[in-house]
């Protein structure tokens, strides 16, 4: 008997050890349940992180753009009838009104991490007798690269743009037959032709993006697109990616801009992520419930088996609350030990699955994310589930009439 342990803990541990087989079976059940939760949560977190990384490192989380240009029919005197059809106006490339002020406001928000001004528009890339339509992004590299991780995708050269430099995708480079250091002509209707040097080639893993996206300095793009001093968008990253839509709506409601969040522009992807999270939560809930029922069943049987012991303890002066605690502790211990073993099993299974499950190109299917928080949360949850599951059996034990209990 450990001298520092209170009576309730001593009795709880001894009762569990005395019914070793019963204890082993239920601990095994809890371990499998917790293992499944740990395995699934870590795998889904990995898959999700992978998807999110792919989506969010190649686009801003919120993009502020000028509001749609709408036709305003002129009204005559009261009582005159308006024309039946209003033709939609063309959407010219225009700058965001007072963009430096808006960007400063964005940067000051606590939920915004980075805000970068971008001037973008269509252009033609020419080399020899080949031409390709491109989207020219004029950026402030030091901030923009914090939002869209272009440097991470560079496969040749480096992500440094000089006044005469341009970054292009691998597909465009192939189409133009150009390589690092080559010069290409970028043509826009307003600025005519400009010769730029390829400083870096990137591969976003997306053919369309690799064909169309090109990056130049903000000043270059402004002059080539006829947007002197103007920008076409303010790209933003936020602290919590899942709040992007709420923040976008807030911004749109208060400023003269249109705010698109990644959630809206990737609605399908976001729905898939949400569905994944919901199904994971449901699975956790049901596994947790089955673990709770298992613990409760074992403890109910234990109370019946130990009714004489409980009666004797009561006859010896054990109070009801002491008996209650003995069984609550048993529930908590079962949950905790099961969670420890289950966490180990889950991590092991995840490691094995991570090693064997590969994508078509041989790269990992998901990054191995084993966060200590997951294990702590699982253990805590399993322990609490154990205690909660033990409440009914413990109350039953505490309420046992010692006379009836001793008689059996």
């Amino acid at each position, binding site marked *: 008997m450990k001298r520092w342990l*209170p009576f309730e803990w001593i009795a709880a541990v001894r009762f569990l050890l005395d019914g070793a087989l019963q204890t082993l079976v239920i601990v095994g059940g809890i371990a499998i349940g917790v293992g499944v939760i740990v395995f699934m949560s870590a795998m889904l977190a990995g898959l999700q992180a992978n998807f999110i990384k792919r989506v969010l490192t190649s686009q801003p989380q919120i993009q502020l753009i000028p509001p749609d240009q709408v036709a305003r029919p002129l009204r005559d005197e009261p009582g005159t009838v308006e024309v039946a059809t209003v033709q939609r106006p063309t959407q010219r490339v225009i700058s965001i009104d007072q963009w430096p002020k808006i960007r400063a406001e964005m940067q000051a928000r606590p939920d915004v991490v980075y805000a970068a001004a971008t001037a973008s528009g269509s252009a033609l890339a020419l080399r020899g007798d080949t031409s390709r339509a491109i989207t020219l992004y004029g950026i402030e590299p030091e901030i923009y690269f914090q939002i869209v991780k272009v440097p991470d995708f560079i496969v040749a050269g480096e992500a440094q743009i000089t006044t005469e430099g341009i970054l292009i995708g691998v597909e465009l480079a192939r189409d133009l037959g150009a390589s690092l250091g080559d010069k290409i002509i970028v043509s826009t209707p307003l600025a005519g032709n400009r010769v730029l040097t390829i400083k870096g080639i990137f591969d976003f893993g997306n053919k369309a993006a690799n064909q169309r996206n090109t990056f130049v300095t903000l000043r270059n793009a402004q002059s080539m697109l006829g947007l002197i001093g103007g920008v076409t968008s303010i790209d933003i990253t936020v602290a919590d990616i899942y709040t992007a839509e709420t923040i976008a709506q807030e911004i749109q409601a208060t400023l003269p801009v249109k705010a698109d969040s990644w959630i809206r522009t990737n609605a399908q992807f976001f729905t898939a992520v949400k569905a994944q999270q919901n199904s994971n939560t449901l699975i956790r809930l049901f596994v947790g419930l089955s673990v709770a029922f298992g613990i409760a069943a074992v403890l109910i049987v234990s109370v019946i088996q130990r009714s004489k012991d409980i009666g004797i303890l009561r*006859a010896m002066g054990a109070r009801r609350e002491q008996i209650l605690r003995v069984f609550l502790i048993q529930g908590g211990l079962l949950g905790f030990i099961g969670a420890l073993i289950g966490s180990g099993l889950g991590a092991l299974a995840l490691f094995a699955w991570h090693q064997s499950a590969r994508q078509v190109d041989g790269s990992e299917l998901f990054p191995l994310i084993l966060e200590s928080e997951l294990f702590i949360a699982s253990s805590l949850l399993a322990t609490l589930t154990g205690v909660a599951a033990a409440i009914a059996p413990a109350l039953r034990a505490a309420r046992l009439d010692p006379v009836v209990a*001793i008689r059996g």
Partner: protein
Amino acid sequence: MAEVLRLDGIRKSYNVGTPVETEVLHGIDLTLHARDFLALMGPSGSGKSTLLNIIGLLDRPTAGRLLINGVDAGQLGDAALTQLRGRAIGFVFQYHYLISAFTARENVMMPMLVDRGRPDGEMERRADELLDRVGLSRWRNNNAANMSGGQQQRVAIARALAMNPDLVLADEPTGNLDTKSANDVFELMREINRERGTTFLLVTHNDDLAKSCDRIVQVVDGRIAVSGVSLP
């Protein structure tokens, strides 16, 4: 001699307030003093187990007064009653009822552990002393389940004495033992009664054991039929 137990007009009914209300004890008066060694006898169904449960504070009477060491048990709440039971009364049951998850020594320590909350050296010394007294020093670390019936009953006696109670209630303590073990256990209780002055109340069906007690009380149909008379 100090009064350890006093019963005044104890009545016990079951199904109170229903059409099938049954009174099983009809006004029991009984007094036990320190050093008493009393046999409680009676046929099955006479109410002696009910009486023992009431004396042991495991059950409450429907009417009457019960005093343990001068304390009126009827005035106590559940917690105080439990504490009084733990400290003033020791139990020895027919089927010894040791807790199988613990060793002999730990079983003897149990009443002290329940009372004080955590084990300490004093509890261990007291348990060893009592096990030595009942002749089981060598078996103190044996699991309770791995002992003979006689040995288990001796451990149960040691456990009943752990809190140094004034009253030990023994419900047919030898009823499940062979003759030799039964005599040994009875002698042990007798010796403890003489040495320590502990009051014993034995429920027994064994006439020979009852004759060896100082006093016999016969319960018949919920009433004390004969008190203080030795069997012929």
